């Protein structure tokens, strides 16, 4: 099942083989056993089902030390300890293992959720009913079961002195069997609580991790789908731009002939034309020019959209760009009796831009202004340097004086006294094919492409364009362009990334 979704790694049943040493911390277990030992003086050891010793709290018993000093005693003791370690009480089981000294070990199963996961070994302790030292102690060589046989072998511990052995044996902690049962069950209850808490913490953390992983997987899945959609849209957009570029190009070729021939006709190359004929041919010529302008704009726009328009940024004197744009358009302005003024301060810093594109920007804006300015009114083009702009968050960053990016801009305002642009339309006029009032297309002409080209071109210069209101009437198009920061001696800089 987990093969379906590889990130679902959580143990499906949350019932993997629980291991004692994974559920509890060894130090905590030792502390628990230590407090038990301090209260009752009886040693405690805890083993996991895998046989690992997890806690061992005991004090060497003097009798054990004495027996161990004897060679045969040592090996007999090792045998008992090994047997105790291996003794398996089984699920919920509880067994007693006797030492040849007469001391007892209780081996009790530690169960959790119906499975044995470890053993508790309580002892050695001397059963309370013991009054006599067992024979087997002195026959320190045989294990408890074969004590009699060993006795017949007559290996009485010459190394062990009966009186001393007896007195040391009776120094051992003594306990009744049912006392041990009660103590052990108390210890088990405490341990069970510890295990439960440990298990819960383990599950919580597993669950938490798995949940996070699962949410991450879901998000990634969504991201992948979004990315695929995005890629598809981008591809469609590219196809659209390509299509537009191709179609515009194909439209331009025959149009050039139409304009050329009609121009030749008006020039009288094919003989004189009657007044009416001249009027007709001139209309063909004008409309042809209009159509050409529209197609060129479309081409520009598609190039800007597809990112194939090359903008070569270098040091540009904005004053001469503005003067040139104005002089190109002054015949149009004169025709509409609109006055055109340019104000460029002598100390205007050079900007970082492409002179051709900058001219296009301002020609578009001025043309637009002329179109919407009533006869007899005036249009001003005013340029001025802006105060320095400090980027970054002053006061929030250390080293602000060093790190803050300092940028300088020049602002050009194209001010008309036309019909103005309502606030809610200000952002939209830069959309391609948008005009505030679709009836204005008929009244004022234009394609609705000019401003969207302006915006894209200004952005390609890392500049900004916005619209303000002129008082009492009209609109102000404000273009800000970055000042060229390269040393004045350098005539040009390599094209920027934009």
């Amino acid at each position: 099942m987990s093969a379906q979704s590889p990130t679902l790694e959580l143990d499906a049943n949350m019932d993997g083989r629980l291991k004692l040493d994974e559920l509890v911390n060894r130090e905590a277990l030792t502390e628990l056993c230590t407090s038990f030992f301090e209260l009752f003086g009886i040693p405690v050891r805890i083993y996991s089902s895998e046989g690992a010793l997890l806690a061992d709290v005991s004090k060497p018993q003097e009798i054990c030390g004495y027996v161990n000093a004897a060679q045969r005693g040592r090996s007999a003791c090792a045998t008992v300890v090994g047997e105790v370690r291996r003794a398996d009480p089984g699920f919920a089981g509880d067994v007693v293992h006797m030492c040849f000294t007469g001391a007892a070990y209780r081996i009790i199963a530690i169960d959790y959720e119906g499975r044995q996961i470890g053993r508790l070994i309580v002892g050695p302790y001397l059963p309370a009913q013991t009054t006599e030292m067992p024979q087997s102690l002195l026959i320190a060589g045989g294990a408890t079961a074969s004590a009699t046989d060993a006795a017949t072998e007559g290996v009485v511990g010459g190394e062990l002195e009966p009186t001393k052995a007896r007195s040391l044996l009776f120094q051992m902690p003594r306990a009744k069997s049912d006392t041990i049962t009660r103590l052990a069950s108390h210890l088990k209850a405490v341990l069970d609580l510890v295990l439960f808490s440990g298990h819960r913490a383990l599950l919580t953390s597993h669950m938490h991790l798995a949940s996070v992983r699962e949410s991450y997987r879901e998000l990634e899945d969504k991201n992948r789908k979004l990315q695929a959609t995005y890629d598809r849209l981008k591809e469609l957009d590219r196809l659209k731009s390509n299509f537009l570029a191709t179609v515009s190009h194909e439209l331009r070729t025959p149009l050039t002939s139409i304009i050329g021939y009609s121009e030749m006709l008006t020039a009288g190359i094919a003989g004189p034309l009657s007044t009416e004929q001249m009027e007709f041919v001139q209309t063909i010529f004008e409309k042809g020019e209009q159509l050409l302008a529209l197609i060129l704009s479309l081409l520009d726009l598609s190039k800007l959209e597809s990112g194939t328009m090359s903008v070569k940024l270098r040091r540009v004197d904005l004053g001469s760009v503005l003067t040139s744009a104005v002089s190109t358009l002054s015949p149009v302005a004169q025709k509409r009796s609109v006055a055109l003024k340019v104000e460029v301060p002598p100390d205007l810093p050079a900007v970082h831009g492409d002179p051709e594109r900058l001219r296009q920007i301002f020609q578009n804006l001025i043309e637009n202004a002329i179109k919407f300015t009533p006869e007899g009114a005036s249009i001003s083009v005013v340029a001025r340097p802006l105060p320095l702009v400090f980027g970054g968050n002053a006061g929030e960053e250390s080293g602000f004086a060093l790190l803050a990016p300092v940028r300088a801009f020049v602002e050009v305002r194209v001010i008309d006294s036309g019909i103005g642009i309502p606030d809610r339309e200000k952002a939209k006029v830069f959309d391609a094919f948008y005009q505030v009032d679709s009836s204005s297309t008929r009244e004022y002409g234009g394609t609705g492409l000019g401003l969207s080209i302006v915006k894209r071109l200004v952005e390609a210069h890392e500049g900004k364009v916005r619209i303000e209101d002129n008082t009492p009437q009209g609109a102000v198009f404000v273009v800000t362009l970055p000042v060229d920061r390269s040393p004045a001696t350098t005539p040009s800089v390599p094209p920027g990334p934009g």
Partner: protein
Amino acid sequence: MQLNFAAREVTMKLVYYGPALSGKTTNLRALHQLTSQESRGRLMTLETKDDRTLFFDMLPLVFRAEGARGASAEDGKGMSLRVKVFTVPGQVLHASTRRLVLQGADGVAFIADSQIRETENNAAAFVDLRDNLRELGLSVAQMPLVIQFNKRDLPGVRTDAEIEVLARRGREPVFRASAVTGNGVLESFFSLLQLTWNRLDAEHQLGKNLGIDRERFLPMVAEKLGYRGDLETLLSAAVGGGPSAADSTGGETAGEPT
């Protein structure tokens, strides 16, 4: 399901699913109360906030059985059935947690809220169950499933007659319950346990491989769950459930009552 022949152990996972606040945790609490001390573990509740389940609740139950041929557990011929009962967090936002809990489920109890105004939430939660099962590569049609209409004690609930009509047209056994009073909790659980056992037995020949006599085993489990009557009565609390469910309960248990 986890099957461990060496340890003679079967672990099944049952999941209580349903909309938020339909009483899944209350069902588990009631079940914990019913079960005999030696068969139940502690009810584990993970991370609750304002008494709402955040991750899940889990109730471990262990039923030890003697072998079918009269061999006792000490001979090693017995077996233990470990049942882990989970609840999912009902709140909509815990979708991924629900799927995680559902993973590896052997049977599902769908706890619906009987209040009429909860109808849509019940349906949405069931669709969520179906979708999550599908994500996990499982199908709701293949999953042992019981439906419980909980909160019968509240006003503004669907009528018994209405539930009966719906249940008879559906394929799953449907139970009416009031988990706060404990009514219907055992019936729903036992029915699910029995359906799941049948399903796993059919797939893995549990009874045959482990030497478990179903007719003795299931009544024993019922007894551990604090039930003293016969199984037929217990299972007849269900409405609907189709002919197959009725067959598997009636026919086999009739032969040898406890």
